């Protein structure tokens, strides 16, 4: 069974439903922190946390600047900011220029998470209509972390998962249903959240 210290998820067009489906599969005892970057239209931004929380047995919160990342919590990047993971496993926000026309950018979050968690990280790229996340997923794999990608055939928008597979490859390419089942089985080592 796969054991990691954190899971990072990137999704864009069609992503609210896809992420919601994965979160709905997490058991209430799930201890691994989950960090999500979802591209949204500005008008839908404020609803994201309650919409996801309604489908998830774990607490869902917007990630706050300098907040320590806690076990068992699902974090969502705030709209309009890049979300980064610091080496001490706290969050940092930035308003640096958009990357891939996106802020938050999946690449920015994934790369910082790869630095912070190295091989103890699972990165997931879901449905989307751009190529954000492909570089970040490649960084995660370079550091020895795992990469799962939604099967483009099953995605509402196939471009993003297809770009991720082309750029980074993947340890597993899964339908959402299969991914939800696999995710529920991911375990965290009892040693704690932090990389040692």
């Amino acid at each position, binding site marked *: 069974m796969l054991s990691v210290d954190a899971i990072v998820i990137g999704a864009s067009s069609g992503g609210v439903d896809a992420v919601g489906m994965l979160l709905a599969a997490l058991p209430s005892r799930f201890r691994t922190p989950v960090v999500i970057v979802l591209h949204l239209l500005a008008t839908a931004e404020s609803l994201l946390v309650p919409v996801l929380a309604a489908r998830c047995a774990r607490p869902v919160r917007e990630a706050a600047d300098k907040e320590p990342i806690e076990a068992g919590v699902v974090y969502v990047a705030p709209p309009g900011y890049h979300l980064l993971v*610091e080496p001490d496993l706290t969050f940092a926000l930035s308003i640096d220029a958009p990357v891939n026309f996106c802020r938050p950018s999946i690449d920015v979050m994934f790369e910082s998470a790869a630095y912070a968690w190295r091989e103890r990280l699972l990165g997931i790229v879901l449905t989307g209509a751009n190529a954000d996340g492909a570089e970040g997923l490649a960084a995660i794999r370079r550091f020895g972390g795992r990469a799962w990608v939604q099967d483009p055939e099953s995605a509402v928008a196939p471009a993003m998962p297809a770009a991720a597979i082309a750029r980074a490859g993947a340890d597993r390419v899964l339908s959402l249903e299969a991914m939800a089942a696999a995710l529920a089985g991911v375990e965290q080592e009892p040693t704690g959240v932090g990389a040692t």
Partner: protein
Amino acid sequence: MNDSAKDGQAAREFDQELKLLLEAIYLRYQHDFRHYAVASLRRRIVQAMGLYGCATVSQLQDRVLHEPEVFAGMLQYLTIQVSEMFRDPEYFRELRSEVVPVLKTYPSVKVWVAGCSNGEEVWSLAILLAEEGLLARTLIYASDINPEALRRAEAGVYPLDRVALFSSNYLAAGGTGSLSDYYHAAYDGVVLDRRFRQHMLFADHSLATDTVFSEVHLVSCRNVLIYFDRPLQDRAVGLFREALVRRGFLGLGSRESLRLTSHQSAFDEIAGTHRIYRKC
């Protein structure tokens, strides 16, 4: 060593060299980035390495130390934030409704825009205060560590292609006229009303190394603290606390808060606002 272990090692070496670079910049140029959040810095340094053709951070350090113009260029990478006039319009609406009525009770008003970057917020505040009839007795201090940014802030010239966004922000922020009342077009940009300039004072000031320079009634410091680590956030907010008059106001970015600083108990958050605090 397998490939991922090598990458882990390379990342550790990058971070070590980054620390050395920041130490070198501090010793040589007295600009202190040692308490900046690391993950963003990494990205900016990688960009700068590309620009200056350096394969390692140490090579970049060599150039920064021996070519002052490379440091001047680096400073742009390390500090510049692109902002907007009236960014987060609700912040300016709340300044109008919650802060301006109190400011009007003072015979003269001092405002500090800390980390003003290219000055979009300085000019936005000047317009807001002018519309509220306060600018005539107000002095706005605008500070930054980047002399190039201060020069641009003082010039108040912005590209034409950003004006549509600025205008819609202005209206959403509760502007009582039209943004075009306050600028004229010049070449491919707009120039903000020079009459506002006499109410602004631009100053090279570092939240990391300098002290308080004046008593003020309002500090606006938005999306600056997020680039700092917690000790430096504490230092900066400590300066604001010291500079503010009793019951003075502190405005932060929409995703910044005092919750994780050591000064939380020294401020009340004004109910219903987006990050406007009042000193106890």
